[in-house]
């Protein structure tokens, strides 16, 4: 039952051209790291550049972009096109549907983001794995929080993709940059704080304490999951013709 649900979700996600384009976007970060290596940088320069690349492109652009597209589509596309009826008409506990969809969306996002970030870390630093591993792990955990939020958002509004993108660009990109207090509720800041803590000296200094980031991140994730379950349990299907 779980396997069938997971495989349906994964096939639906992979069937979308958007998801495949995201794979190419992931490749871009590795390419940038490789081009940087061509300039034969010092080890100090390598660490600084690669850290910034992983933070400012990997965690700040690649991660939210992949997460918003995958997270809002995991359940949202079925709600949009009406195929959700085939899941709702089965004796499946609604929390199970949410859990399986979230895990698939999370793992796919993590794969599309953490792997390229890890690889870019290794390439950019000229063969050391520490920075890539730290940012990759932070990306994987950040992916869980992001996908939970976007999956819940897709059950709240049919414009989840637009609102999700607006959150990433406006809130995380602009507002959190201007007002330090708002960074507490920025998933990007949670991931950056975690990456900084995991990377030790090589990381880009984060604005948020890691303990706070983990705590708020956990609360946001759990709240999003609970909201998603409640919304899915109350989803109503309306006819086209009445």
């Amino acid at each position: 039952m779980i396997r069938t649900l997971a495989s349906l979700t994964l096939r639906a996600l992979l069937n979308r051209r958007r998801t495949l384009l995201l794979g190419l976007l992931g490749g871009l970060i590795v390419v940038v790291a490789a081009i940087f290596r061509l300039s034969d940088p010092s080890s100090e320069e390598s660490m600084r550049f690669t850290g910034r690349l992983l933070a400012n492109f990997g965690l700040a652009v690649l991660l939210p972009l992949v997460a918003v597209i995958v997270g809002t589509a995991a359940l949202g596309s079925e709600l949009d096109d009406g195929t959700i009826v085939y899941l709702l008409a089965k004796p499946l506990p609604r929390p199970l549907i949410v859990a399986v969809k979230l895990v698939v969306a999370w793992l796919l996002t993590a794969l599309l983001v953490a792997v390229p970030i890890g690889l870019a870390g290794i390439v950019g630093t000229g063969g050391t794995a520490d920075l890539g591993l730290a940012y990759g792990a932070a990306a994987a955990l950040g992916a869980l929080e992001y996908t939970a939020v976007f999956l819940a958002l897709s059950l709240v509004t049919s414009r989840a993709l637009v609102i999700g993108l607006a959150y990433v660009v406006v809130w995380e990109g602009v507002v959190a940059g201007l007002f330090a207090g708002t960074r507490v509720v920025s998933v990007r800041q949670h991931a950056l704080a975690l990456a900084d803590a995991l990377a030790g000296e090589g990381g880009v200094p984060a604005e948020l304490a890691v303990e706070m980031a983990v705590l708020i991140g956990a609360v946001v994730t759990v709240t999003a999951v609970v909201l998603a379950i409640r919304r899915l349990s109350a989803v109503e299907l309306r006819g086209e013709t009445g």
Partner: protein
Amino acid sequence: MTLLTLAGVSRWYGNVVAVNDVTFEVGPGITGLLGPNGAGKTTLLHMMAGFLAPSAGDVRLDETPTWRHPDVYRRIGFVPEREAVYSFLTARQFVLASARLSGVADPHAAADRAIDMVELRDAANRAIGGYSKGMRQRAKVAAALVHDPPMLILDEPFNGMDPRQRLQMMDLLRAMAAEGRTILFSSHILEEVERLSDRVLVVVAGRLAASGDFRRIRRLMTDRPHSFTLRSSDDRRLARALLAVPEVESVELRDGVLTLRTGDYGALTRAVAPAAQEADVSLLELRPADESLESVFSYLVRR
């Protein structure tokens, strides 16, 4: 025996009332839900299938409310009107996934059986995205009956089917009803409902205008004269005799067809034979002329 019960069910969207205080029961056999487009059929079906919360009232499958009780889907198969399917799956994969998600013990055998029932075996390994509307419809039906549910709810199941597929689907539904299943389907096409189901639920503007055997419903419409056509050994003589029968409102002999109208169905059927006998005319046939579902329906919709 599976019984679906609606008690005082209403559903409104803001100020718009889509379904208004509907009460009925659906038991084994085929029941047709009939109504013009926009009458509230789909809203009603979705409430029955547990996809929509009633704003008032109660919908139960046996003892269990259908809303927010996913376990009822072990006993319900639902075929939605919307065409959307997982177009990237083949019909076999779609039906198999449906079997697995329903917790069927042997999903492969169940999927094969369901695919055979809808006669889709030859095309079962092709992606549904390339199917015609009728084939898609059959794939949806196979997915809905793969777990062998005692109740099947179908929203406009004949949409997009060609005449042969229609007949085949009707035979399938009849066979399933003969096994004691409860089958409810909606349609706005009278002919389909008339051919398939004796029991109808007629929905007009969100209200249940009539329910039961449509021939009986017709007979109960006492404010509208019933028409009969007659054949006899001497129609002209019989017409004269019938004019003397108090229950007869009018007699018409046109193009060789004798038609009479009455407000009292029962009394007339009892009076015709003695009148013919008295006039020394052999009565060959007495046939209700407007007992079709169409006449019932147009009457109810106009009212």
